[in-house]
């Protein structure tokens, strides 16, 4: 049920594609850094506790 975009199909689809790719990349990078920093902090806290 793709709508008929006529002669502007390429224009509309490229605008959506570029935007969605940028949003997905931003979300994935934010999640990845969040997990990475959380794990690093846990490791540092463990080390600090061990060292007294």
């Amino acid at each position: 049920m793709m709508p008929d975009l006529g002669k502007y199909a390429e224009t509309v689809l490229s605008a959506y594609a570029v935007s969605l790719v940028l949003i997905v990349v931003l979300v994935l990078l934010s999640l990845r850094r969040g997990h990475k920093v959380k794990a690093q902090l846990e490791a540092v806290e463990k080390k600090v506790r061990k060292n007294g």
Partner: protein
Amino acid sequence: MNLNRLWEYANPKKFIETTDRVLPAVSVLAVLCLVVGLAWGFFFTPDDYRQGSTVKIIYIHVPSALMAINAWLMMLVTSLVWIVRRHHVSALAARAAAPVGMVMTVIALLTGAIWGQPMWGTWWAWDPRLTSFLILFLFYLGYIALWEAIENDDTAADLTSILCLVGSVFALLSRYAVNFWNQGLHQGASLSLDKEENVADVFYYPLLVAIAGFVLLFVALVLLRTRTEIRARRMRALLARERMG
């Protein structure tokens, strides 16, 4: 409502505890509104009699442009809170919002260029709104670079807050450029409190849902990234304490 309770969230531990509960709900709502708003606009709205199917770009272009400006204004508020009350969480929230605002600015610029090509016959014009948006993008870049360049968190927060105050002029200019100068290619605002000036209802309602989706996506990402910045700051502080002995 006791406004003083708001400052409780300036406590990093309290902020992380609260966002543990809030973040999943905001994220689900964001995805829901984005999917409904974009699908409604893309699949179930008619073409415009002048712009043809390119009118469907409005559901991405307008919300991202709105968020590009409002993200900077949110950074302005949190920067002022940092300057006045020295709450680290507010400075870190501003830092967390900058990349999100920058991506929104890039989306607004790119979709504007893609839309402009068939409508105006050019990808780019030195139109007041387009130019002020490009300057806003450069301010975002500078703001992010300044945070990265300065090692001391408090100094970085001070300097970036000042940059944010200066950049706010361009954020506001981006919003009102079409009202100040009439010679540009860009049309006036698509949304207005005056119903006569609004886009037609058939485009207006899905646009409102898409805007809600972008706002919620922004909130979810800023909460997520602020939590990361709080943890990164704590890690830097612990490592510095370790090095000192």
